C-alpha cells in the first residue's frame, strides 16, 4: 500500500510532539538529521522496505511506540 512511509513519519512526529508546534518542527528536524528526507515522501510514495526498516529503528531510538 503506497504512502506507508509518510504515514509512519506522521505517526512519529505526532507521538513525539504531542501537538506542540515547536516539537513538531524539532522532531521533523531530528528525522532529517537521522537521514530521512521527509519532504520527499507523499501519500503515493512506494513502500521502500529499506526506508520502512530505518523508520522503525528511528522510532525505537526516539521512544516512539505507535510505529
Amino acid at each position: 500500500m503506497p504512502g506507508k512511509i509518510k504515514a509512519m513519519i506522521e505517526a512519529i512526529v505526532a507521538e513525539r510532539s504531542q501537538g506542540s508546534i515547536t516539537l513538531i518542527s524539532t522532531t521533523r528536524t531530528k528525522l532529517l538529521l537521522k537521514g530521512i528526507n521527509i519532504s520527499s515522501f507523499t501519500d503515493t510514495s512506494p513502500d521502500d522496505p529499506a526506508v520502512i526498516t530505518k523508520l522503525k529503528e528511528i522510532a525505537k531510538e526516539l521512544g516512539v511506540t505507535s510505529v
Partner: protein
Amino acid sequence: MKIKSAYSTQQTVRDAVEDLRQQLAATQPSMILYFASSKFAPEPLSEAMQGAFAGATVFGCTTAGEIAAGKMLKNSIVAMAFTRAAVKNLTLALVEQVNVKTGLKERIGQALDSLAKNSGVPVAALDPHRFVGMILIDGLSLAEENVMECIGDLTNVTFIGGSAGDDLKFSSTHVFANGKAYTNAALLVMLEPAVPFGFIKTQSFKSLGKKLLATEVNEAARTVLQFNGKPAASAYAEAVGVPVATASERFMKNPIGLMLDDEPYVRSPQRIDDSKMVFYCNIKKGMELSVLESTDIINDTRAVVEAKKKEMGGISGIINFHCILRTLDLESHGLLDAYGRLFADIPTVGFSTYGEEYIGHINQTATMLVLGE
C-alpha cells in the same frame, strides 16, 4: 542588571581573570559562562576562573576567536555573568570519552538524568518551553553528531551550543567546569531561565536547486565516496560548474546542506581526498543534499537579530556560537568589525567554533541562545 558581559585582552591567566573579576563580580553572579583563547593554559585558567567567582557555577571552553558585545576578538577571554533574575536554576553534567561510541547513549542518559534530578520529573518529560540545554564539546572529537543524536532521542529540551576550538592549531580543545579542564568531553548544562528565551539559527545560504544524493559514504570518517553514483569530488565539481582541480576553491561559497522547508542544515566540505570528499559533519548514506550559495552574512544577521528583538520585546543577552568558517569569511572580506558591531548594544558573549550545535551538529552557521527581558 540581570546579565553583564565583559572581555579581557590581558595576556596572562592571572591578569585576565582578575580583569574579568573586577568587571563582573559586583553583579553577584550565580553563573559565569566564559570562552577563552587556547593561548591560556587550560587547567590554570579553569582553576583561576572558579576561584575568582567562587559563589557561582563557572563553565566554558576554548575557542578559535572570541565574541563580546561589539567586538570580534583573538587571544582574549570573554565572559558573561548571570544573576538569578536571568537564570533561576542550572545544573551541569560532564560526559567523558565522547569519542567512544560503545555505551555513549547510556552515559548521556545518565548525565541527562542528573540534570533533570532537581526538577522532579524525568528528562523525557522536561518542558522545552521552561528549560533550555547548552552543550560545549571537544571540537576535535568527531563525536558531535552522535552526542547530539543521543540527546535528541532522550529529551525534547532543545540543546544549543558549540564545538570548542584551539585557534586553528587543531591540536587539542578543552571544556571547563568545576575548576578543571577536560578534553574528549562534552559539558551538558540544563538552564531554567527566569526570562523568556529563544533561538537564532542563521547560515546565510540559499539553495541553488542542484541535488547531490550520497550513494556511498564512510559516515564515521565524515567522508562521502560517491554522490549520485559518481566519485564525490567529480559530482560536486560538476554541480558547481568547475573542474575537480579547482573545486575546493568553492567550498566556502558553495557548501551543501540538508533542506527542510527551505531551511538548510549545512554540511561544509573540508577537503578533497583523491576522489572522495571529507566534510566537517557526517553525511549518511541516502541523504539528499542541496548545493548552496552564500548570501550576505552582515545583512542576514542584522535582520534575524532585529526580528528576534521585535518578537521577544527586547533582548537582555545573546550567547553566539559562531562557525570559524564564517569568521574566516568575514575576515577575508574585512567585515569582522562590522559583524561585531551588530551586537554592540546587546550584552553578548560567544566564540568562533569548530562546529555548531542546534538539535543536531551543523556547519557554517551561527546558533544563538537569546534571552529576553
